[in-house]
């Protein structure tokens, strides 16, 4: 078992342009079932045997898929998410970076109203992988191995760091998810933790958070209330200056809120094992697994 994606997942690639093609090759190589792609004006052609359509709707009329991955450029990405939902994707993974925050506000409101059953991961994220079964996104597949740890992270390469440190210690992963570094993203820590709770393969969760917003505090409240598997957390940006955007649009200490210290205190209070150093992600996970 894993969560959200597995060997049976059938994926539509929205935005099968140059970047989309590069990562599609790597997803196919990993074994992901990529069943169709969209690229405006290229409908009727194919990419390495993957049929291409002008729109997600046209793809849906021809091919069955339950998931989509969005590589569409930032200006049109929010629109593409809705298009994917409309075409029947139940899970949408938006990789695109640089989407305007208010576009996501409007898109999420539309998803809630019109497609309440559709789940969104991202944007501005590396994607989701259930090692050995399905990889949707841009992460390097080979650092992962199947196993008991669920990983949720707001960051890309720091997630790879966490995965790598676990794998080196022989600790595999159930499903790893980058939820994205923007102020408004799809599924949050609190949306994902219940799925890990119900997943028999997952024995522990590694949460990689960062400064800005209150997603980690909300996760802490949820964990305290109803999450009984061990959780390890690392919060990046302890030494970040207030008012500065640390790369991610969402990683900013605004009005004195969203500091690492507050997040760490809330998580520690909820019984979460804190990894103080980013070099101790794997060893702290090993500690809670016993």
């Amino acid at each position, binding site marked *: 078992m894993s969560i959200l994606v597995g060997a049976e997942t059938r994926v539509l690639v929205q935005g099968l342009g140059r970047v989309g093609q590069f*990562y599609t090759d*790597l997803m196919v190589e990993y074994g992901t079932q990529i069943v169709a792609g969209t690229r405006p004006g290229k409908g009727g052609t194919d990419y390495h045997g993957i049929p291409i359509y002008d729109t997600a709707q046209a793809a849906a009329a021809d091919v069955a898929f339950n998931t989509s991955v969005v590589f569409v450029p*930032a200006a049109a990405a929010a629109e593409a998410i809705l298009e994917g939902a409309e075409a029947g994707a139940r899970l949408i993974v938006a990789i695109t970076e*640089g*989407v*305007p*925050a*208010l576009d996501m*506000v*409007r898109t*999420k*409101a539309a998803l809630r109203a019109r497609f309440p059953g559709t789940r969104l991961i991202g944007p501005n994220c*590396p994607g989701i992988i259930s090692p050995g079964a399905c990889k949707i996104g*841009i*992460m*390097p597949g*080979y*650092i992962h191995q199947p196993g008991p740890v669920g990983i949720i*992270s*707001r*960051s*890309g*390469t*720091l*997630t*790879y*760091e966490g995965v*790598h440190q676990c794998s080196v210690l022989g600790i595999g992963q159930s499903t790893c998810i980058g939820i994205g*570094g923007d*102020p*408004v993203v799809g599924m949050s820590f609190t949306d994902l933790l219940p799925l890990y709770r119900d997943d028999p393969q997952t024995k522990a969760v590694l949460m*990689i958070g*960062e*400064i800005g*917003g*209150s*997603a980690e505090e*909300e996760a802490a409240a949820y964990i305290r209330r109803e999450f009984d598997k061990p959780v390890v957390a*690392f919060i*990046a*940006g*302890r*030494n*970040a*200056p207030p008012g*500065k*955007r*640390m*790369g*991610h*649009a*969402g*990683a900013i200490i*605004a*009005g*004195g809120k969203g500091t690492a210290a507050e997040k760490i205190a809330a998580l520690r209070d909820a019984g979460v094992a804190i990894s*103080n*150093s*980013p*070099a101790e992600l794997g060893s702290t996970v090993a500690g809670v697994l016993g």
Partner: protein
Amino acid sequence: MKIHEFQAKELFRTYNIPVPRGKTAGSKEEAQAAARELGGDLFAVKAQVHAGGRGKGGGVRLAHSSEEVGEAAAAILSAPLVTPQTTPGGITVHTLLIEEGCPFERQFYVGIVLDRAAEQPAMMVSAEGGVEIEEVARERPEAIRRAHFDAAVGLSAEAARDLAHALELSGNQAAEAAAVMQALAQIFVERDCSLIEINPLVVTRAGRVLALDAKCNFDDNALFRHGEQAALRDRSEEDAREAEASDYGFSYVSLEGDIGCMVNGAGLAMATNDIITLAGGAPANFLDVGGAADPERVTAAFKLLLGDERVKTVLVNIFGGIVRCDVIAQGILQALETLDLKVPLVVRLEGTNVTEGRRMLRESQVAIIEADGFHDAADKAVAAAKGGAA
């Protein structure tokens, strides 16, 4: 992206939000001329800088004649302005806003932020205007009234009226304040703001509602569809290296330490700064060269770091995911062919093709301190920086 008060007020005017009459000036003479043109016997002379807390640093002064305006202007322009939000050295003021003075009877705070948890814009108003809203939020949160609104619709007339009444305004003044709030919400949505504030919004002695101050930040991610806003950028307000980095498309933040960092990915870059601090050192910067760092970007990043005279050591921390470590190693070696490396260089490579990448660095003629792991990289960089300083 931040803009100046006078730019925000110009924007406000186009949305019919009342603001005081004013003119910008870059010298004592221009300030005096502006005052003469405005006329009257009360003026505000306001430093146009992006940092907040101007009043506390003497960047906002009142004057009663064009001579006094000239004196105030000369005083503000002659020395760096230090506010709670600047570095201790302060910032140079290039532009002043000279405005007609507006005696007022009441002052309020009105602002809009994106409430991330609610995933909606939130308008906040408080009868305690003129002070820092963060302070009010901390000490008397009940003094702030909030109203979320739908980004697709804007702030409704009813909601705006309720907020005006919460400020204990009535009649015409309530209607004027409500109109300001609705216009502010419209700007926030139409112009893709990340923050917009009037602090204070005042009721003048003449009984009119007026935006005495204006602050407006735009969402960087949305600038592509607002060319006219992007043109308002004032590079002289930005840290020189931050401005240069943004030309390369890097995320760069200047910090106070002496270890120059080059990392791929924002989270890993933040974590690198954290681990340097844990190891007893201090990063000179946050630098994310992007998840897909290539040789060109690595070269550009080196130029940026080596051009910073505070940097005593450079630490490169790359997790090669899709981008391969051998390509990164090649980028590092290429960059160093053209650049003069005068400080120790610590490199930590991990991920795809790491063995090949490390071999390339080892076999090169360049003096590179190779680090094995995240911890080791921080320890070596901190030791090198301390050695270099001694």
